[in-house]
């Protein structure tokens, strides 16, 4: 798959964007631990859609806005990016922390997006259980905890490089800068989701040890028009652990009339 990397200036910040494929635009919002440059999941989607994978401001190759304080700020920047690119009928695919950002974008612009897919999304206080605290575990143990099958973790990250460890430290710092307290959820977001007109699909790994599945149920209830599905033998980083399955779900959902 031929990917193009570009830089877009949003809110005075150089944002990194990878883009490939053609068809309906799908904006993929990555996890709190950042994202590898390329993933089988991204390729699978790009075979069907015009796929856009920006790095959140401060994550990966995007510059850090010193003033950034909340995922809602990140959501506003991604909305700005979509507007800047002149895209319409965009679908949002939010992965974990990126799911929170996608939900914020949808709540601010309830009729704009074609489809909303939330995979193991943070952003809502789970009615049962807590969102795992990455602050007290190592850079490696946290992503590991997000995989049901450790072979899948090894397949994605291999021998973890020092660069990768540094990146995870940067990602963690950005998570703290934007979602420290309350940790990884908004107290107001659940009240703002009811107006979302875009059909939503809530996807959860049945062994998500980062965000309890009760949060998925809460999202499904709070969104006006949502269905939920679970993936068997799958952890939090579902698009890395079960790329084909998640890509198929997204493809069918985005293309459905």
């Amino acid at each position, binding site marked *: 798959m031929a990917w193009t990397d570009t830089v877009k200036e949003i809110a005075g910040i150089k944002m990194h964007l990878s883009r490939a494929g053609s068809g309906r635009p799908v904006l993929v919002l990555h996890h709190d631990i950042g994202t590898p440059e390329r993933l089988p999941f991204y390729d699978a989607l790009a075979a069907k859609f015009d796929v856009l994978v920006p790095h959140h401001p401060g994550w990966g190759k995007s510059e850090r806005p010193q003033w950034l304080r909340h995922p809602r700020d990140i959501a506003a920047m991604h909305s700005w990016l979509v507007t800047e690119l002149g895209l319409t009928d965009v679908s949002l695919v939010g992965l974990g922390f990126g799911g929170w950002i996608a939900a914020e974008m949808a709540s601010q612009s309830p009729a704009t997006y074609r489809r909303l897919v939330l995979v193991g999304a943070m952003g809502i206080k789970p009615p049962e259980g807590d969102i795992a605290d990455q602050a007290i575990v190592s850079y490696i143990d946290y992503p590991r905890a997000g995989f049901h099958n450790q072979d899948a973790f090894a397949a994605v990250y291999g021998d973890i490089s020092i660069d990768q460890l540094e990146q*995870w*430290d940067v990602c963690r710092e950005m998570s703290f800068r934007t979602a420290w307290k309350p940790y990884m959820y908004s107290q107001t977001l659940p009240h703002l989701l009811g107006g979302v007109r875009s059909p939503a699909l809530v996807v959860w790994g049945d062994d998500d040890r980062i965000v309890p599945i009760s949060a998925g149920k809460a999202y499904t209830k709070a969104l006006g028009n949502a269905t939920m599905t679970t993936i068997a033998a799958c952890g939090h980083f579902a698009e890395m652990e079960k790329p084909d399955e998640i890509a198929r779900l997204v493809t069918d959902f985005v293309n459905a009339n």
Partner: protein
Amino acid sequence: MHLMYFTEQPMSAYDADEGLKYGATALTFSNKYYDPVAGSRLYNEYIEDYLLAEEYGADGIMLNEHHNAPFCMQAKTNIFASILAAVTKRVKIVILGNPLPLCDNPIRMAEELAMIDMISKGRLVPGFVRGGGQEQLASGVNPAFNRERFIEAHDLIQKIWSEPGPFRWEGTHYQHRVVNPWAVPLQKPYPRVWVPGVLSKETIIWTAQQRYPYIALNTSIDHTREIWKQYSDTAAECGYTAGPENFGYLIRVHVQDTEEKALANARQFMWMQGEFTGLAHPVWANPSGYFSPSGRRNFVQFATGRAKNPRGNPSFEEQVQSTMIIAGTPDQVIERLKYVVENTRPGIMGIWANDGNVSKEDRQRCIKLLCGEVMPAIREFGNKLGLKDPWEANAPVHLRYSTDLVGQKVAAE
């Protein structure tokens, strides 16, 4: 020279086996292992120890605070400072320090310290620290804004202490629409602020820019000299010459009547270095964003077990050999301390004398020998070397009160 007595106030009465079994003795090590009966006894014994240090001649008592860990019982240093303000008569009460970033209301901090200064009749040294990474996690404070909060809280407290209220504070991390606390410090222009530290270059530079004394916490002699150089270079850039009055040094020293007994008790200094307590995950000590970005690459390797602790992990014998720990009879201790003083030339010296499971009887014998015999000899030695503390040197409390800056015609204020 200003010579202080210091102890971490260890909560030694807990089952060390439980800590070793759990694999950590900090942050998440359960407080069900805390025995408040022993805690009550120890708090009261530590007050007795401080009174003894004053009686036998210490110039100051150094206090600190930590959270969620048995190595230090002080969860709020202002509480012990308040107690000492009332029960002692002469010693300086040296807080090294209040972790400012943990403070959500710097006005309250300024107010508490002003009260302690007045109750102690002007004996308070209200030092400030960033607080260890673990303290941020134990207090739910964002480590990524630690340094910003430290500086802004300091600036607000400084303004409270040097300008009449009411005024308004609209900062990045603190917003207060009415700043006008009625309690203000007795000491003018405001109490001397000292800043302790170990590692970060940014803190050394900031401290030198304020002209506050920097207290190196038991760093090696070589590392201490590097700190002094960094401080002196910054001082020169600010237009003043740093001297012993700008430098403090904390060292572990245990004194007994016999060397054998002193060494046996001094082994307890290892207590908080991971032999019995002080075990913690590296990411607790350095949560992301807390540490200088320049140290990121080395730290992530250490945190994942791929590199050694950048601070090293020397054995007890190695630390005695390198004078990081000094133990012996008064004469032996005086001799070794003179070597350290000669090579580090501090105007302020903290003596961390008791740690871990040293018995009350031995702790108090140590205090008597240390404050009664060792400190006078070191003070005299320091005088010969011209090592003046900030009071003896009549040093300005802050750079802004300097009258000797190069190129400066009159004091800034």
